[in-house]
């Protein structure tokens, strides 16, 4: 009895949903999955809006294939695996999407990829899943991302400072996901390059004094202190106390330390040997294109991950166009449209891309967040630069490879 009622309930609700959504043959459908409810609820709507901007541009400039429309559904992955797999299953089976942009959180990406997208053969591009675990998914070349792995910045920073002659360093990191992830990847790369880590310790947030931690780190004889922390918080205290006591000569931080509070509180005069790494949306025409279009559409282009969310959706559309809507060819097409060589395509240039694809020419999408040359695992290299303090602000002094 109960089973019948349940089945009847499911059937009637699904029936209602289906009647309302007739799919047209030449249309292509994609899903935008995001953490709409849940811990990143404040970040998700601008990201979804950026992806929707890409969809809108596609449809305004000729759509998909021969007169088809790019349609999208928005799913709530809520930043947890339970809802992410649920939303992905609905997108794949009910809405019949051929590609998924999202989900936003790493745990959601892992679950949705492993239990839905990969088995079902659906292409997935996440704009903000930064966990190194995503690299390792056995994904049949179906899982990509437009944001660099957390691993990347730590490793790039290790290479950069080793190259600049700092060979013996001490590392102080905040004991959370951010600090720990960076510290681990930094350490692995730095040691592989033959550098020496003369001190390595975690510190807890919000203590009044870190002098004993610093003294301990300095004992190893390092001349450089690498800080993985936030310049608005504990990192500032740590840096101030290290400078006051002259524990080290050079100070290096990652993007969290690149904060105006550091210059304001400590003074540029005292920060001549302070450097940070930080991502740069390559000051490019691509970024300008996106900023102008997104502002015009009422969005805030400075909101976090909007550039990667836009690029993920635009790349998805390019891949669909290139593959002629054939889901089996999608990942191969994605690699083709994203990688050099080819005619450069900037954000918003859908009509041009469409024409070039129709002529059978190779294209290379240069996104708002970067060039997006996918590697074997579907990851992208980040664009990071090395900054020093100059006057009241930070000045980029070198690109980080």
């Amino acid at each position, binding site marked *: 009895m109960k089973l019948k009622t349940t089945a009847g309930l*499911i059937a009637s609700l699904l029936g209602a949903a289906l009647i309302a959504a007739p799919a047209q043959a030449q249309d292509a459908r994609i899903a935008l999955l995001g953490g709409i409810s849940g811990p990143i609820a404040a970040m998700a*709507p601008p990201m979804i809006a950026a992806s929707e901007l890409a969809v809108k541009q596609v449809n305004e400039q000729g759509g998909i294939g021969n007169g088809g429309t790019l349609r999208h559904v928005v799913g709530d992955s809520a930043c947890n695996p339970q809802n992410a797999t649920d939303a992905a299953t609905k997108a794949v*089976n009910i809405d019949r999407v051929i590609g998924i942009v999202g989900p936003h959180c790493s745990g959601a990406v892992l679950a949705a990829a*492993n239990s839905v997208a990969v088995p079902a053969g659906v292409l997935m591009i996440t704009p903000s899943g930064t966990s190194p675990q995503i690299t390792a998914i056995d994904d049949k070349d179906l899982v990509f991302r437009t944001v660099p792995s957390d691993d990347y910045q730590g490793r790039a920073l290790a290479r950069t400072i080793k190259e600049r002659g700092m060979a013996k360093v001490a590392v102080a990191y905040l004991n959370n*996901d951010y600090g*720990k992830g960076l510290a681990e990847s930094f350490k692995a790369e730095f040691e592989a390059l033959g550098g020496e880590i003369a001190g390595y310790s975690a510190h807890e947030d919000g203590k009044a004094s870190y002098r004993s931690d610093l003294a301990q780190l300095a004992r190893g004889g390092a001349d450089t202190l690498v800080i993985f922390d936030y310049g608005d918080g504990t990192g500032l205290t740590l840096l101030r106390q290290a400078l006051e006591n002259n524990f080290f000569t050079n100070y290096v931080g990652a993007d969290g330390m690149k904060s105006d509070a550091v210059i304001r509180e400590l003074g540029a005069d005292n920060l001549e040997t302070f450097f940070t790494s930080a991502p740069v949306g390559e000051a490019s025409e691509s970024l300008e294109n996106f900023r102008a279009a997104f502002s015009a559409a009422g969005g805030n282009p400075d909101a976090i991950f909007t550039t990667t969310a836009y690029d993920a959706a635009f790349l998805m559309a390019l891949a669909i166009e290139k593959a002629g809507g054939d889901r089996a060819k999608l990942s191969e097409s994605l690699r083709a449209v994203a990688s050099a060589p080819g005619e450069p395509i900037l954000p918003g240039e859908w009509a041009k891309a469409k024409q070039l694809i129709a002529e059978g020419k190779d294209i290379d999408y240069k996104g708002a967040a970067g060039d997006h040359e996918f590697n074997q695992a579907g990851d992208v290299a980040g664009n990071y630069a090395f900054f020093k303090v100059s006057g009241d602000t930070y000045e980029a002094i070198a690109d980080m490879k």
Partner: protein
Amino acid sequence: MELIGLANYAIFMGILIGIYALLSLALNIQWGFTGLFNAGVAGFFAIGAYTSAILTSTPALNRMGGFEWPILLGWAAAMLVAAMIAWPIGKICLRFRSDYLAIATIGVAEIFRLIIKSEDWLTGGSRGITGIPRPFGDLPYVQSQLAYLALVVIAVLVVYLLVERQLKAPWGRMMRAIRDNEAAAAAMGKQVEARRLQAFIFGSAIMGLAGALFVHFNRSITPEAIDPMIATFLIWIMLILGGSGNNRGAILGAAVIWIIWSVSELLTDRLPTEVAIQAKYIRIFIIGLMLQLVLRFRPEGILPEERKRNPVGPG
């Protein structure tokens, strides 16, 4: 039209409903039959999930484990470890009554969550564990899901039958006696403390099994999956709505809540996009509203506890 798609979606829902039904059944043993207010379901779910993940996954560099045990052994270990951890916790916490017990168990679950988040060597920290095998995972999409559904259904059925059997036995009547009038039960010579501990351990082991079934389905686990909202309170709502004290009610509650949760999104997606994003919150509202209505008009749940006036058999 897309019958395969519909079937696929229904299979997926069946799997998640099955996993939640196990949790709900386990909570029913603790709350429905023994009156233990366990607000730390997520903790035992997590222990089972991580135990099986560590034992059965492929080896990884940065953490312990990856022993590649057979999956069934992993599940058994999940139940065993959850039970073993429940024992000392029960020993300490079960001296508290109702709301105090709830607070203590929330605290315990939070401790587990933080341990899982910080002890990288054991659990992979915030990056979690991947490379967990799924039984029949090599089959094509539909067949693989179907096979997993079969496993989950078998697990739910076995647990349901065993729990029903146990509760119809004198043990079940004793538990109800303890729940309804502890002093009287004690006066009849029942060992109240030991029995309450038994129920707590029994329920926790089943929660561990549900956790194990969940990780093998997703082939991965991260701390996001053990958020109290989705792994504790949702289960309480399922049990209260379905009818605490009734095992079929516990399963029905899991089905009703999950179907509302999942299907309502399909309906709100038909709205224009500007509204659709806001409308996602409506499902949270609907579930809250249903809980209010049930508590107001049918506090015993959809399928209330069956009370037999004259129980047959030896008392």
